[in-house]
């Protein structure tokens, strides 16, 4: 037998031994992990009212520039989760649907006007509306799914929507981009009015 042949035989013997000696994997089944993550990931993007408001936060952040571009996405998830916590603890929040619709109107108006209020005002405005979004959207865990993974998916999807808004807002550096962003803001505000009409009807 040649040297190459011996090596191949040795490899095959080792592979066979490894297969035969392998102990079975007793993987602990964590039920509902993937389903919980996917449900959390899907939930924020399943409602147009939520999507538009999240993207508008990113667009406005892009218009504001540093440090607003980062402050708003840092503020929003935490305050939104606080709203979710209130909802989970059964603390009633009046006019949740109206609050969500109003977030579309006001955030859209801010983008349309290219408003530049003091940073703390912008953060407070975004934070105020985040409570409504968290209260409405963060508490709908389907039965049998992992709460942790649902939360991870929910926060990730929300952050991704902010990121999308910031990325789109990158066109702000050009004149035509600035105009397009303002038109987009008008669109978001218009959709907010539509949602508000639905909420009060």
């Amino acid at each position: 037998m040649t040297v190459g042949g011996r090596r191949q035989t040795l490899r095959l013997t080792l592979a066979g031994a490894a297969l035969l000696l392998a102990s079975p994997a007793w993987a602990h089944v964590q039920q509902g992990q993937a389903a919980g993550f996917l449900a959390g990931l899907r939930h924020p993007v399943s409602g147009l009212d939520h999507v538009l408001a999240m993207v508008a936060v990113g667009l406005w952040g892009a218009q504001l520039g540093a440090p607003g571009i980062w402050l708003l996405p840092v503020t929003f998830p935490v305050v939104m989760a606080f709203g979710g916590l209130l909802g989970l603890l059964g603390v009633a929040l009046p006019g949740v649907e109206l609050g969500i619709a109003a977030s579309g109107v006001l955030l859209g108006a801010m983008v349309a006007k290219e408003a530049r209020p003091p940073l703390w005002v912008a953060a407070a405005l975004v934070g105020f509306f985040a409570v409504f979004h968290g209260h409405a959207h963060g508490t709908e865990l389907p039965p049998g799914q992992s709460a942790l993974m649902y939360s991870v998916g929910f926060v990730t999807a929300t952050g991704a929507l902010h990121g999308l808004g910031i990325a789109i807002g990158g066109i702000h550096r050009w004149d035509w981009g600035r105009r397009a962003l303002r038109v987009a803001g008008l669109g978001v505000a218009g959709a907010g009015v539509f949602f508000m009409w639905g909420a009060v009807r």
Partner: protein
Amino acid sequence: MSRRTVALAVLAGLVFWPGIAQAHLMTTGLGPVYDGISHLFLTFDDLLPVLAMAVLAGLNGPAAGRRVLVALPLAWFAGGLAGFAARAPLLPPGVTALSFIIVGGLAALDRRLAPNVVAGLALALGLVHGWLNGAGIASAGREAMGLVGIGGAIFALTALVSAFIVSLRRPWTRVVARVAGSWTAAIGLLLLGWTLSGRG
């Protein structure tokens, strides 16, 4: 009643409040050390706070990073041994969520902390999560050697992540680390809600 008495009463309440073992123990078939390593990377209850702690250490500079690199794995291991010996979690279910909120929130705020304060946080985090891991390992009838795997994986992960964060120079990269902290705190808040509402 003095503040100290109230604090001790709250602490005693937390310690003696019986909880259930939250640890999800993996079996790879490669032995307890590898089981421990895989446990860390497959269990978000433990992985996210470790990542957030490493980010917080990195944001606070090399001195904090070095202290956390020693404090976190050792505390996790010590807490794990104690939990293994006690064989019961003895901690309230929401304690994991609190670690997300505190460590993630501090990373999001990005306030400069003294290295010893950061190390103290790492110590507390390691003791609590290690205790839960050790109790989970004991109640599942596994070997305590799994804690070596968990501790080793935490050491490697903390070293890599905190060194990476320390190396960041551009302002926006530092903000990305803060966003990660904010997300961790947000997840912790939701998790706390689920736990307190009995659905977590």
